[in-house]
């Protein structure tokens, strides 16, 4: 059959071999893991010829030097971002959970079992399958009531040349609420590839705020996915801050499944040097009377590259949907690059959807105004860059995190 010979052809390429060899070093893979690998190899590791990967090569991220993590050593990090947090913190160091959460209404457990959100085939892509094939421990966070305290999960990685798949599955019960901060860090020179997946099943009338800070070391690769199911009247606020890493691909998929549900997204791609920051955002409005509003901003300096693909789908019966997707990009160097494509795919006829993208340099008139008040050129530029960037997190994250982000990004407070 042609299909199988195609698959064989795919399997012969380097990255597929790397992953199947790596998989062979897993001692007792579960059926779920085996299936995920089969799917992965059938689809093949994406190349630049794959439409959704045309600007992001995996050549370096999936190299034949990768091995699986077989040790649990490593020092527990104290990340400065977490210093000011008066919150329950747990650390997941090299895939192993340290610490516990003792908040009534929030339960964190480790499981060998992966629960897919399993609808509409939105969890069968390359990142999903890689994650499931290689995940060792799945963290299950169950939110059962209104939680006022912050929940902080810090994923840190220290093992060189390794591939690690972390998985966090959040289930928010009906009427529950919580704010969850997830921080991803690694040692600065760490040339590893991390494949973290976060899923959220937001129950009816639940309100979940998820703040995902990616501040990986400058040699680390990340292939991430965040996938949410929003049931009736739920509100999901997702703030995504991509700061570190050598390459970070983050697929965000939101299935808006229940009437009255709303998704609010804010995203900052902050690139310097030769970083590649790639976000693919897909929001599916499956039912009527649902809302989404997404603001994605990229600030790219030096030779960094940003990729943003955002799509709002509105199904045929999903009337009275209100959706807005904006992508604004600031290029600070003539070598920086952004590839952006906001899209709408609408099958209903009574909806309000907007999308747009801008690409530009700093506003000359604003620069002139600030300088005419005595600020030097460099200070004026910094003020404008910080104003642009801050709009993605001010008022959306706890104030201690605002302060840390300001300091991390070199903005004056």
């Amino acid at each position, binding site marked *: 059959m042609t299909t199988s010979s195609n698959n064989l052809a795919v399997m012969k390429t380097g990255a597929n071999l790397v992953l199947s060899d790596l998989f062979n070093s897993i001692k007792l893979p579960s059926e779920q893991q085996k299936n995920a690998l089969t799917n992965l190899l059938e689809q093949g590791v994406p190349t630049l010829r794959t439409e959704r990967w045309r600007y992001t090569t995996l050549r370096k991220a999936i190299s034949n030097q990768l091995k699986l993590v077989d040790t649990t050593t490593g020092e527990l990090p104290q990340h400065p971002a977490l210093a000011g947090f008066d919150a329950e913190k747990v650390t997941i160091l090299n895939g192993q959970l340290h610490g516990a959460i003792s908040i009534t209404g929030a339960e964190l457990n480790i499981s060998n079992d992966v629960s897919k959100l399993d609808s509409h085939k939105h969890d069968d892509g390359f990142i999903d399958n890689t994650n499931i094939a290689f995940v060792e421990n799945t963290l299950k966070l169950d939110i059962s009531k209104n939680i006022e305290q912050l929940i902080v999960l810090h994923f840190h990685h220290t093992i060189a040349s390794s591939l690690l798949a972390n998985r966090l599955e959040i289930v928010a019960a009906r009427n529950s609420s919580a704010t969850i901060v997830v921080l991803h860090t690694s040692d600065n020179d760490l040339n590893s590839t991390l494949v973290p997946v976060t899923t959220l099943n937001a129950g009816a009338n639940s309100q979940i705020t998820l703040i995902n800070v990616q501040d990986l070391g400058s040699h680390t690769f990340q292939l991430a996915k965040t996938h949410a199911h929003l049931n009736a009247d739920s509100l999901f606020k997702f703030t995504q801050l991509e700061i570190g890493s050598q390459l970070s691909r983050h697929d965000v998929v939101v299935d808006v499944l229940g009437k009255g549900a709303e998704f609010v997204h804010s995203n900052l791609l902050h690139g310097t040097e030769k970083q590649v920051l790639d976000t693919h955002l897909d929001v599916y409005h499956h039912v009527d009377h649902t809302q989404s509003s997404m603001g994605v901003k990229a600030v790219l300096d030096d030779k960094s590259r940003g990729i943003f693909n955002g799509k709002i789908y509105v199904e045929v019966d999903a009337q009275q949907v209100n959706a807005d997707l904006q992508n604004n990009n600031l290029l600070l160097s003539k070598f920086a690059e952004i590839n952006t494509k906001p899209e709408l795919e609408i099958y209903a006829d009574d909806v309000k959807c907007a999308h747009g993208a801008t690409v530009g340099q700093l*506003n000359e*008139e*604003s620069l*002139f*105004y*600030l*300088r*005419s*008040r*005595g*600020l*030097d*050129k460099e*200070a*004026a530029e910094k*003020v*404008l860059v*910080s*104003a*642009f960037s*801050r*709009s993605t997190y001010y008022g959306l994250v706890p104030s201690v995190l605002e302060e840390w982000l300001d300091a991390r990004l070199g903005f004056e407070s």
Partner: protein
Amino acid sequence: MLEIKNLQASIENNKILNGINLSIKAGEVHAIMGPNGSGKSTLASVLAGRTEYEITGGSVTFNGKDLFDLEIEERAREGLFLAFQYPQEIPGVNNVYLLKAAVNAVRKHRGQDEFDAYDFLSLVKEKVKFMEMDEKFLHRGVNEGFSGGEKKRNEILQMLMLEPQLAVLDETDSGLDIDALKVVSKGVNAMRSEERGILMVTHYQRLLDYIKPDFVHVLVNGKIVKSGDHTLALELEAKGYDWLLDAEAA
């Protein structure tokens, strides 16, 4: 304080200023009037350092320094202030933050200590009250969503905080209702002193009812064609600009 000699400037090869001569001494208030397109705003822009204009001749010295040797921010720190005709909206940059950064940049240049936070805030609040503005404007983005009148008051607020040696007001009166005009004029009059010069660029005589200039100059086709005291403004109000245009053509 300010010596403008035979200043010529053009934009995209169109000559806008055709040899302006003007001398402003400390303590003087000058008004420049003129019909649309006469070069009034270009003069203000050139003084503040807008780069889109090309200086094709002449010189400007400010306190003995060649103005064109100074960067935009250096002019501000030396004590030159431009109140914009169309103040820029800068979302996300806190108004009070800009005021503080600006004041401290100027103080540092003068060899003064930076303000401490408490002193600064009490001074700002005093000036805000004087300009009959709501304190909440301090915490909004610079000019973000301000009405035309609020923007102009905000310009004068900045001027009061920066205490410039020479204030250039570019059509600060245009678009203001009479109440806002009174407040803005109150702010400008509060700045009048023996050490300070003020240059007002305006299209309308009305402003000069509230801020009485020592000298009035009429700019036509990029040249000062007539100078006089404040009665010249009244004459212009009565006769319009045509008699000067005719005289210029003749």
